[in-house]
């Protein structure tokens, strides 16, 4: 399986270099490739959903490692008033010379307590924190070694036991859809027959549209991509949300050793396309769209955050001239002299009225006494 479907290696033929019309910048992709391999990649993935939906198993299956050794699960009693924590696991993995620093951000405790009001707040705070830190680093003087901890993608696990999205799912996705790329998944899909899966997917897609949740959209293919890629892309778009099953145990099925789950009535193969969408998820998340997820995070979510942040800061500054900006910002265009004058007038009027009010209050107070 090629590691990079889109990039085709151009082998420079010796005749070309003698051709006067050949300049040579067609080698740019090669150069980019080399540099990026040298630099290495990083990716931050967040998994969110109630406990018991198979998040850890899926992450282990996706990256074929065991990230969750020695994990302690809480009892039901301890979870009654549990708060959401944020835990990070970072691993360095390498494949064919390409290094990837993978960070998995886990959210244990989400949706587990009896009262889950605003339980997504720690998560949104965490994402904002990462943005803020990057913002500061980016505006600092020494920008050589910025650490990018921003969350590039959030896999949200929807339980398959219900009839669609539940209120907590809707609230969570609405709180996060403008901060991070959300990819909704139907977890533990081995409890649904193919008909039920289709019904549930249609239901969830309709509800996502109805509530105006902006999940991650796959970019349109360029028209010069090959057919195979276009076909994959089309299938992917029709399949959302993906119904996944995870497993890291190897079993024997149909004479082969595959990863799957053994039941008395059959064996579910994780990598069998007719059993679940795990393969699609893996190819989408890792093999084709990983970089696009990073780009959308940088270009859309982070820029939105930055613009909002700067607007808040400058509006605060014009009110209070004593505070120095911690970051170098361009001065906003000053409002008209006319409006400024009006504003000043109104301010003075307000002040006068306030004084009058105070005097009257004092008078009343004295009269009472």
């Amino acid at each position: 399986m090629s590691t990079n479907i889109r990039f085709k290696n151009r082998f420079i033929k010796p005749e070309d270099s003698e051709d006067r019309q050949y300049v040579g910048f067609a080698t740019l992709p090669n150069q980019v490739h080399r540099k990026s391999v040298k630099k290495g990649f990083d990716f931050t993935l967040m998994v969110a959903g109630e406990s018991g939906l198979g998040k850890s198993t899926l992450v282990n299956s996706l990256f074929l490692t065991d990230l969750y050794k020695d994990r302690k699960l809480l009892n039901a009693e301890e979870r009654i008033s549990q708060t959401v924590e944020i835990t990070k696991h970072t691993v360095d993995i390498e494949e064919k010379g390409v290094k990837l620093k993978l960070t998995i951000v886990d959210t244990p405790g989400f949706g587990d307590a009896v009262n889950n009001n605003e339980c997504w707040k720690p998560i949104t705070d965490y994402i904002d924190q990462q943005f803020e830190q990057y913002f500061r680093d980016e505006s600092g003087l020494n920008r050589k070694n910025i650490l990018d901890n921003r969350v590039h993608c959030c896999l949200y696990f929807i339980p398959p036991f219900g009839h669609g999205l539940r209120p907590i799912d809707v609230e969570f996705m609405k709180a996060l859809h403008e901060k991070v790329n959300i990819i909704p998944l139907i977890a533990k899909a081995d409890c649904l027959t193919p008909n039920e899966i289709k019904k549930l997917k249609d239901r969830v897609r309709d509800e996502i549209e109805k509530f105006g949740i902006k999940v991650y959209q796959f970019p349109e293919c360029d028209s010069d991509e090959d057919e195979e890629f276009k076909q994959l892309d089309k299938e992917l778009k029709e399949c959302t949300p993906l119904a996944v099953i995870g497993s890291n145990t190897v079993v024997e099925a149909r004479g082969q050793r595959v990863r799957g789950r053994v039941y008395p009535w059959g064996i579910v193969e994780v990598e069998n396309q007719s059993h679940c969408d795990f393969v699609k998820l893996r190819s989408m998340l890792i093999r084709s769209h990983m970089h696009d997820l990073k780009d959308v995070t940088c270009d859309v979510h982070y820029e939105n955050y930055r613009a909002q942040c700067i607007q808040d800061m400058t509006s605060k500054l014009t009110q209070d001239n004593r505070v120095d900006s911690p970051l170098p910002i361009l001065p906003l265009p000053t409002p008209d002299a006319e409006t400024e004058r009006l504003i000043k007038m109104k301010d003075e009027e307000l002040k006068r009225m306030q004084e009058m009010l105070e005097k009257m209050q004092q008078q009343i107070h004295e009269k009472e006494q």
Partner: protein
Amino acid sequence: MAATDVDIFSNEEKRNLSLGGHVGFDSLPDQLVSKSVTQGFCFNILCVGETGIGKSTLMNTLFNTMFENEEASHYQNSVYLRPRTYDLQESNVHLKLTIVDTVGFGDQINKEDSYKPIVDYIDTQFENYLQEELKIKRSLFNYHDTRIHICLYFIAPTGHSLKSLDLVTMKKLDSKVNIIPIIAKADTISKSELHKFKIKIMSELVSNGVQIYQFPTDDEAVTEINSSMNAHLPFAVVGSVEEVKVGNKTVRARQYPWGVVQVENESHCDFVKLREMLIRVNMEDLREQTHARHYELYRRCKLEEMGFKDTDPDSQPFSLQETYEAKRKEFLGDLQRKEEEMRQMFVSKVKETEAELKEKEKELHDKFEQLKRMHQEEKRKVEEKRRDIEEEMNAFNRRKVAAETLSLSQPLKKDKDKKN
């Protein structure tokens, strides 16, 4: 004829006698049975579980029929209970089955009050029965008993442990109703995970003191099967009303791309065990437990609240009647006293307000008087001024007239002078 054994005990103790021949009262159970068959049976099931977990499907599968059911939505603001009554018949036995569904359970973001509607419903059914029992003219034999005989608690198959909501709800319900926990949608858990899951659930229930229904092991006919079933709790069930052809039989099953889960196959799930236990073996015991244990507990608490006791300070058994009368008198006395108090309060308040109003009236009156006086003063002044002005006017007029006549007479005089 055999000699009868005569025990030399006091008259109050019963004596065991042996019979000389066949009397025939061994047909008593049969008489009882035929009577209850003609009366018909009634059974009430409460299904508690999240929306979409498979409660309706399991009921359809258990009773092998299609009860009408619309899918519930996830967006209810609060939990409410939906009871439905059906009349079923098998051979010549009539069953009045009531299935109560919890709609909206587990969907809200804040689930702290989710258990309340359920507890309230159960209490209401007990209350209704209690009221009927306490009536003067009562008809318990054809009273439609709506008390919940069994609560099936559906646990989501997470594979880890109970959810916090499950624990809280079961603790509130275990003293009011027989609970049987079941693991729903069990076709998503593999055998080894299931074993661990069941052990974890039972240990959590035990460590938190939740009392679930134990199948009775005191009746020799069923003790063996019941005790083995007790070890299989909670039952892992799969429900289905669709039929799939397996081999040369058509069975109820779920068809997956990787296999077929047969509902009635004991190695696939515990559905058959649940059906055995719930319907075929222990239904009557469940009804008895509800009446003898849970209902009696409710009744005792309720009556104690009202102030009844079984024995008074002299440890003479109270008759309910007397206590009732005494209570009633007390209550009426209280009522009267309260009425008096309220009347007094009302009267005093009225007096106060009257006094206030009178004062205000007086004040107003005074003011009025004052104003009147002022007004009169002003009037007087104005009158004076008017008179002054009039006088002036008169004076002025007189002077004017005088001046005129003078001027008139002056030319006359002049004329006169001239004439003269």
